[in-house]
């Protein structure tokens, strides 16, 4: 039987295991929306296409499944770009379907035509323009395969209106064959052995984990390696949750706003075991002084990540999980003979001393609420049992410093792109994936206004997402840089005109709460978190509070500014 392109698309999604998609209709995707109700696909109508892509991204990060977004041509497609770029920077598996003008009109500056394949080329893992309905099924198969395999990422498929309207025989390929795409999953055994030798010889080893550990579901193997050898672990922001954040071996995040102990450990380690990381500049600080005494083992599935920024002694191109399995296997017999953990004991003592001398801290003086307190309280109330999304800025740093992530996929944050407005729609996506879990967006007053319209989406779909606004009445992180590095010239960062977030929430049909005094923090948070409705909590916090420690841009990790 012949199917239309629209039917082929929807049928293929179902075959790929998709059951929830995020989207926004328009002229170019009318055929798809027309056929939608015939398929077991739950569609979540957002209020802005950026929200659709962030929601698909949050769904993917929280669940490990591939997120799907569907938007129309032209402005629908361009609105999706920030979401796509956000997912690309953080290697999140998404498939984005965009409508396109009919093939005959392409190139004519037709109504709502943009060259979205051209526009998205540098922020997708790959993209396609489908010109013939006969190519559609194979293209969809490839798109899903590319999005989730190797180093994951967003894949965009552009669908001209006449292609989705045309009919053809439907055959969905079982397998993908692409001669030009073969990710390396299995680690080279020689490299693994070299790595093991280095670990055995090390005196001050340190494990450094990133998003790759979470992407490859390698947290169990990673945890085993660290605990067996009793090697301390630090994580990039993307890596938080890859190792239990409440384990004494975990030193917290490293880098620009990393903990004192983590940055000192990097500075003194003689062997950095980097797993699923890409040595972003926010992590390394000044490259010349990064881990100055260390040999480096670098495990990553993407060869371009290796030796891009730092030179590496043992590169291991591999899926993190497989490489860690192989390393653990090598250590099994070694550990029965050698007491490696004891060898690292004095190193752990040194680390313990740094931790005790400079724990994460802030001054708690007077009446005003400190934002860090609110995050600590959220951790205390939830006991870490929540999915936390963040916006961008100081709120993001406090959310990553003062909340401990026990499990992978419990922190959703825009690491690479730093996209304000990411957190709330991402939280919606996570709530869609896990209707029964507590999902909280730790927000800033600036960021939340970037996708506030999605309150409608959350309320409509009865998604009880909680937004906790650390309201400092300013673009705090930028204000902090102005204070420290731009002569306190607070150019356009202190927001004089603030909406009333409580009334705003209520206008959207959500609950609104306000916290103005310290003693309100506990009861009001508890009430909001236990509510079955979408809720916004506006917490008025100290305006001038800064995030510390801070490694100034371009400085070495040991040159931290402290509280």
């Amino acid at each position: 039987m012949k199917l239309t392109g629209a039917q082929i698309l929807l049928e293929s999604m179902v075959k790929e295991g998709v059951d929830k998609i995020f989207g926004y209709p328009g002229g170019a995707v009318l055929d798809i929306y027309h056929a939608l109700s015939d398929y077991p696909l739950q569609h979540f109508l957002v209020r802005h296409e950026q929200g659709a892509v962030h929601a698909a991204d949050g769904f993917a990060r929280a669940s490990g499944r591939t997120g799907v977004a569907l938007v129309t041509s032209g402005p629908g497609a361009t609105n999706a770009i920030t979401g796509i770029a956000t997912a690309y920077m953080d290697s999140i598996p998404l498939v984005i379907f965009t409508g396109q003008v009919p093939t005959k009109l392409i190139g004519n500056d037709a109504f709502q035509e943009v060259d979205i394949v051209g526009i998205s080329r540098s922020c997708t893992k790959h993209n396609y323009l489908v010109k013939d309905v006969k190519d559609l099924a194979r293209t969809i198969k490839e798109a899903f395969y590319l999005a989730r395999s190797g180093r994951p990422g967003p894949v965009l498929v552009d669908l001209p209106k006449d292609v989705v309207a045309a009919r053809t025989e439907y055959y969905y390929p079982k397998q993908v064959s692409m001669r030009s795409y073969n990710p390396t999953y299995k680690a080279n055994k020689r490299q693994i052995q070299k790595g093991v030798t280095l670990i055995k010889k090390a005196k001050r080893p340190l494990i450094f984990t990133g998003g790759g550990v979470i992407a490859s579901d390698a947290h169990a193997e990673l945890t085993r390696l660290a605990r067996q050898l009793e090697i301390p672990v630090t994580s990039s922001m993307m890596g938080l949750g890859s190792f239990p954040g409440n384990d004494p071996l975990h030193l917290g995040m490293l880098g620009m706003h990393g903990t004192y102990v983590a940055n000192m450990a990097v500075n003194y380690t003689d062997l950095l075991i980097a797993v699923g990381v890409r040595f972003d500049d926010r992590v390394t600080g000044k490259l010349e002084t990064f881990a100055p005494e260390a040999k480096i083992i670098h495990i990553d599935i993407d060869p371009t990540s290796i030796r891009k920024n730092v030179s590496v002694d043992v590169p291991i191109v591999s899926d993190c999980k497989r490489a860690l399995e192989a390393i653990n296997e090598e250590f099994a017999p070694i550990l029965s003979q050698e007491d490696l953990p004891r060898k690292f004991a004095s190193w752990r003592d040194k680390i313990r001393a740094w931790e005790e001398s400079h724990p994460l801290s802030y001054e708690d003086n007077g009446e005003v609420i400190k934002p860090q307190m609110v995050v600590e309280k959220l951790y205390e109330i939830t006991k870490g049992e929540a999915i936390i999304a963040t916006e961008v800025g100081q709120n993001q740093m406090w959310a990553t410093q003062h909340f401990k992530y026990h499990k992978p996929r419990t922190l959703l944050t825009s690491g690479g792109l730093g996209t304000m407005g990411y957190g709330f729609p991402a939280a919606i996506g996570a709530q869609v994936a896990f209707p029964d879990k507590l999902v909280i967006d730790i927000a800033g007053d600036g960021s939340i206004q970037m996708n506030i319209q999605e309150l409608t989406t959350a309320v409509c779909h009865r998604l009880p997402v909680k937004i906790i606004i650390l309201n400092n009445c300013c673009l705090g992180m930028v204000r902090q840089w102005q204070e420290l590095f731009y002569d306190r010239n607070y150019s356009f960062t202190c927001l004089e005109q603030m909406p009333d977030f409580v009334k705003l929430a209520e206008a959207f049909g959500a609950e609104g709460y306000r916290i103005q005094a310290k003693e309100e923090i506990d009861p009001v948070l508890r009430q909001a978190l236990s509510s079955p409705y979408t809720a916004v909590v506006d917490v008025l916090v100290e305006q001038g509070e800064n995030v510390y420690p801070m490694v100034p841009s371009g400085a070495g990790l040991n040159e931290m500014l402290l509280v």
Partner: protein
Amino acid sequence: MRHTLSVLVENEPGVLSRVAGLFSGRGFNIESLNVAPTLEDGVSLMTIVTDGEELIIEQIKKQLRKLITVIKVVDMNEVKYVDREMILLKVNATEQTRAEVLRIVDIFRCKVVDVSPTELALEATGDRGKIKALTNLLVRFGIKELARTGSVAMRRSMQIED
């Protein structure tokens, strides 16, 4: 250092802009880029001459391999290879200078492909060094126009150590 890369790609719309976009987006140099179909249906060969420090060249090769439509990347600098470029150029040739221009044409085994009372159009093929020597010699007569194909390269069958 200058490197010559042979890049086999799927011959599909957009593949050139993927490669070119990679170079411009990441700030890599392209000295020349040549692309044409191969004997195999659907596969094209790009020859890219680029310049950069070793770590950059390594990134360029890895980034090229990462492109989904790139099938294979060979760095010709790691093997013995031959490379050639063809140029067409139009040079002034007056009564006084014509003979000397033609002597150079002879020495460099160029072809004269077009003639006018005041100009000669030449076709020349050679490696980088030869092309450079030729243009250097002709410059004093006045080169009016120049069109180059960029290098194409091929691995030698016998990889003899020297």
